[in-house]
């Protein structure tokens, strides 16, 4: 069974540009989560989808971040326009409907905003 995959693995952009991160969850996992780890800090929750619906986006830092999960499969996280403080590692995780609290993480996308 394939794990959670994320694309790209790295992204270097300039301040003001737009970046779109993609996450493909484990097949059959209804729950999809985005987390972020800023340098030196703990991994923090951004938002949670159940299928295609946003269940909780309380961790999204501001309206420059937009997440979608069309069709309830893969998800994208767009940052527009990117700021320096958006640099960090963005992790995606997924979990089954019946074991929702056991989340499996992808390798992350390392974003650097210059």
């Amino acid at each position: 069974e394939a794990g959670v995959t994320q694309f790209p693995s790295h992204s270097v952009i300039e301040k003001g540009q737009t970046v779109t991160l993609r996450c493909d969850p484990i097949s059959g996992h209804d729950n999809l989560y985005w987390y972020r780890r800023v340098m030196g800090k703990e991994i923090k929750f951004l938002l949670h989808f159940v299928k295609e619906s946003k269940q909780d986006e309380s961790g999204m830092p501001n309206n420059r971040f937009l997440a979608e999960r069309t069709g309830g499969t893969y998800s994208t996280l767009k940052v527009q326009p990117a700021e320096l403080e958006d640099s960090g590692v963005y992790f995606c995780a997924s979990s089954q409907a019946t074991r929702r609290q056991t989340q499996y993480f992808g390798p992350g996308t390392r974003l650097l905003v210059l």
Partner: protein
Amino acid sequence: DQQVKQNSPSLSVQEGRISILNCDYTNSMFDYFLWYKKYPAEGPTFLISISSIKDKNEDGRFTVFLNKSAKHLSLHIVPSQPGDSAVYFCAASGGYQLTFGKGTKLSVIP
């Protein structure tokens, strides 16, 4: 305000000995706890979890203990192996989202 704390940034253990990683939490609404292992440039890998209705869960060399009254959990690795060298994160959940500690870097010395 950190709700999950891992107060030891690092830990060194001899191969074959026991590794004990500790985690404290403050939120009484947390009812599920997990440990993740992370290698550099990789995502966290799920290791073991425990529900608040239990006080111990074991999986091979890994055992997690939960002390609800003290709001404390620990991960025991016995025996420790060099491949266990990684950063270990404690995480807690009261619903869907996970709240993480800052991690403890474990070094197992051959």
